[in-house]
């Protein structure tokens, strides 16, 4: 199984970047694989020698990540590093570094929109330079995604953050919203860069490098809106067909996707709810501490104890805030990305089914009509190749995706558990020191009686 995988991987690498599947495989020399890890991005951040073993470069210290807004919020636990490295053929060096930052608002007579700065650093030969800086807006990202889907209908394209977030959004350009979106866009581009096939896509390259005019003229090429609409109508008609003759392994895959999608959506909802409840808890706690200070004003003997309690509560509030921010940075975006991924997966499944259906309809045509058998047979031959390629591409990408998913989910939840442990440890220390201070001062009532 693994051997097959590898062979098909070599094949897909050999395909000309941006070409649609279906042509015979191109050159067999595997292009340098890329490691889907952020460790080498860390290398950039830490300014270390690129040749260094990426495991050494890794630093679990979260503060390093915070220091630099460039670092993507990808799993950085040692375990996930090891797992990711295992599944790549050759742990070669990453040669494409992308960051998304500096959102800027642009106002025109027709509309207001935000652009993001995209900085690309690369050592690849096919790039004209080693550094690029461009500005792109959300629409442009959408365009890129569509082009990638067109070129690789059965590869799992990374998801984009949503166009709008319906609930709780007052203003499209709220700061939190922009920041969340920026991080997601950053992740989006990096996931593409890490993908063994997509990273060499021509449109991707243009997206990263073309300046404004060149870019907009390039966008205008390619199938127009109408033809795209026409395609999707056909697609719907065909997709039903594809489902019937789906091979076993893809039935399993589909089943997984359906259940996964359900569960991840639930987890997303639960996680959002937890965040909300914690926020409300924090708000109440913030009021709770000061009451003790107020009380201490009318007391004499009790004043110190009351003030101590108030300060403990305040410290716990700060610990809660920290826990919440950890939660919203590590867990929520990851879970949400996989919610979007699950939608993506369903679309990929559909596209695969469509390709299969195309073949099936031609085969049916062959068996029913006797006319143009030669032409049909030739078409069928091409379609059979197309189907095989599509299936193999999906199979390989599926394994890769699953592995990534496991790692991402695992680290996100491990991280959440760590944040909680830290939170409780901090609160514990606070209250324990309060207790010792009280019993030091008043020896007659030992706390040991109570414990």
């Amino acid at each position: 199984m693994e051997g097959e995988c590898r062979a098909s991987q070599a094949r897909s690498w050999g395909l000309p970047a941006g070409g649609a599947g279906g042509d015979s495989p191109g050159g067999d020399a595997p292009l340098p694989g890329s490691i889907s890890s952020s460790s080498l991005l860390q290398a950039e951040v830490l300014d270390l020698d690129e040749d260094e073993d990426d495991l050494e470069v890794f630093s679990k210290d979260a503060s390093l990540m915070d220091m630099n807004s460039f670092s993507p919020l990808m799993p950085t636990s040692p375990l996930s590093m090891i797992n990711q490295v295992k599944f790549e053929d050759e742990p070669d060096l990453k040669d494409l570094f992308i960051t998304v930052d500096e959102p800027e608002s642009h106002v025109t007579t027709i509309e207001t929109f935000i652009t993001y700065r995209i900085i690309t650093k690369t050592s690849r030969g096919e790039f004209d330079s080693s550094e690029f800086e461009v500005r792109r807006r959300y629409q442009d990202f959408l365009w890129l995604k569509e082009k990638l889907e067109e070129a690789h209908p059965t590869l799992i394209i990374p998801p984009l953050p949503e166009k709008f977030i319906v609930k709780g959004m007052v203003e499209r350009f709220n700061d939190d919203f922009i920041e969340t979106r920026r991080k997601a866009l950053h992740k989006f581009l990096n996931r593409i860069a890490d993908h063994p096939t997509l990273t060499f896509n021509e449109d991707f390259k243009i997206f990263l490098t073309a300046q404004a005019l060149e870019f907009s003229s390039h966008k205008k090429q390619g199938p127009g809106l109408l033809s795209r609409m026409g395609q999707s109508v056909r697609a719907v008609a065909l997709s039903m067909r594809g489902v019937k003759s789906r091979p076993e392994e893809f039935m399993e895959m589909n089943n997984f996707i359906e259940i996964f999608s359900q569960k991840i959506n639930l987890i997303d909802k639960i996680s959002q709810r937890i965040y909300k409840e914690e926020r409300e808890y924090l708000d109440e706690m913030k009021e709770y501490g000061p009451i003790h200070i107020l009380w201490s004003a009318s007391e004499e003997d009790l004043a110190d104890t009351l003030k101590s309690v108030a300060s403990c509560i305040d410290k716990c509030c700060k610990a809660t805030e920290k826990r919440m921010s950890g939660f919203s940075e590590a867990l929520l975006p990851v879970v949400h990305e996989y919610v979007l991924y699950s939608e993506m997966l369903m679309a990929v499944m559909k596209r695969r089914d469509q390709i299969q259906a195309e073949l099936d309809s031609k085969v049916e045509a062959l068996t029913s009509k006797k006319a143009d058998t030669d032409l049909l047979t030739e078409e069928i031959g091409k379609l059979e190749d197309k189907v095989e390629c599509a299936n193999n591409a999906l199979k390989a990408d599926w394994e890769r995706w699953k592995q990534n998913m496991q790692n991402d989910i695992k680290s996100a939840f491990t991280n959440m558990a760590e944040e909680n442990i830290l939170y409780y440890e901090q609160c514990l220390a606070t209250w324990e020191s309060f207790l010792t201070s009280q019993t030091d001062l008043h020896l007659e009532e030992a706390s040991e009686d109570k414990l």
Partner: protein
Amino acid sequence: MEQATPDPERLWQPAPLEPLSHPDAGLESMMTENNFSLKKIEISVSEAEKRTGRNAMNMQETYTAYLIETRSVEHNDGQSVLTDSLWRRYSEFELLRNYLLVYYPHIVVPPLPEKRAEFVWHKLSADNMDPDFVERRRIGLENFLLRVASHPILCRDKIFYLFLTQEGNWKETVNETGFQLKADSRLKALNATFRVKNPDKRFIELKHYSDELQSVISHLLRVRARVADRLYGVYKVHGNYGRVFSEWSAIEKEMGDGLQSAGHHMDVYASSIDDILEDEEHYADQLKEYLFYAEALRAVCRKHELMQYDLEMAAQDLASKKQQCEELATGTVRTFSLKGMTTKLFGQETPEQREARIKMLEEQIKEGEQQLKSKNLEGREFVRNAWADIERFKEQKNHDLKEALISYAVMQISMCKKGIQVWTNAKECFSKM
């Protein structure tokens, strides 16, 4: 447990946390009086039972009865023997307390637990029949009895003794004391509060303090209830992870076990909040006791104001009578009087009449002076006794509230430790996925 001392004057602190958290703890107390035998007794409110009966209007009602058990402890072997056991309902406790308020106005009378559940957060039932509420009330009633029993003065009261020992007829006995008639009317008290000119400064301060205490503790309890509500929410939502992880684990091969067991820990986490918050209710009850004590403090202040006002009125009355007398004697009318007016209108009175009046006034003045003297004495004695009890109360309050705050910290520590354990276990499961 603290030992009873033979000296009733000694200020005695009960251990209030024990009664509130250990239902069967008693307190040794000594009752010395002419009829009462000198022995150590333990009091506990050990059970609560739902009963139905007929009320005063012959309508059926449901109420809760509480079993009060009194045990005497033999000096030598420390064995306790059940001496009395009877059932009382909340209204009888109220009757006892009202009686004590009337007969001991200079004492800060311990408060009863709340009649209706207040400061509830959503989970806690506000229903008086709810078993949790009944249980907490049982503990509160026991605490009340223990406080009375350990008070150097209140513990000697006969009605209190009978409350513990005489089941039948107790209500009649209390009513026969006629204490309701002796009670100061609220209106009178209110009037005095407004009009008193020279109350003891310490009582004014005490009144302010009790107002502040009441206000701040109410506020604290309200916010605490809201915090509890939110905390409950946070914990319980995590429980949902448990269910979803479990369902998800069915489709995963490598991740499945880790997910499943992590889910189990999420369930543990979610259910741990119930015990945590139940403990916190006991803490809230300790604060509530002092919330209600604030009212008891105010009652003592009111009594002082009433007595002081009474004294001031008596002095004023005496002064005016003296004035009248003087005027009659000297024949000068300096102040307005009805007699003066009528005299002017209807003619002078005879010398005999005048003499009679002067004599009457002189007698009244004599009486008035006696009364003023005794009122003065009473007033000063009241202030002295009340202030002694207030000092005792202050010490008790500082001790108890500090204990309560420490116990709050202990609860938080326990909660944190549980949290660390659960999340450490969960983290292990996650890392094995």
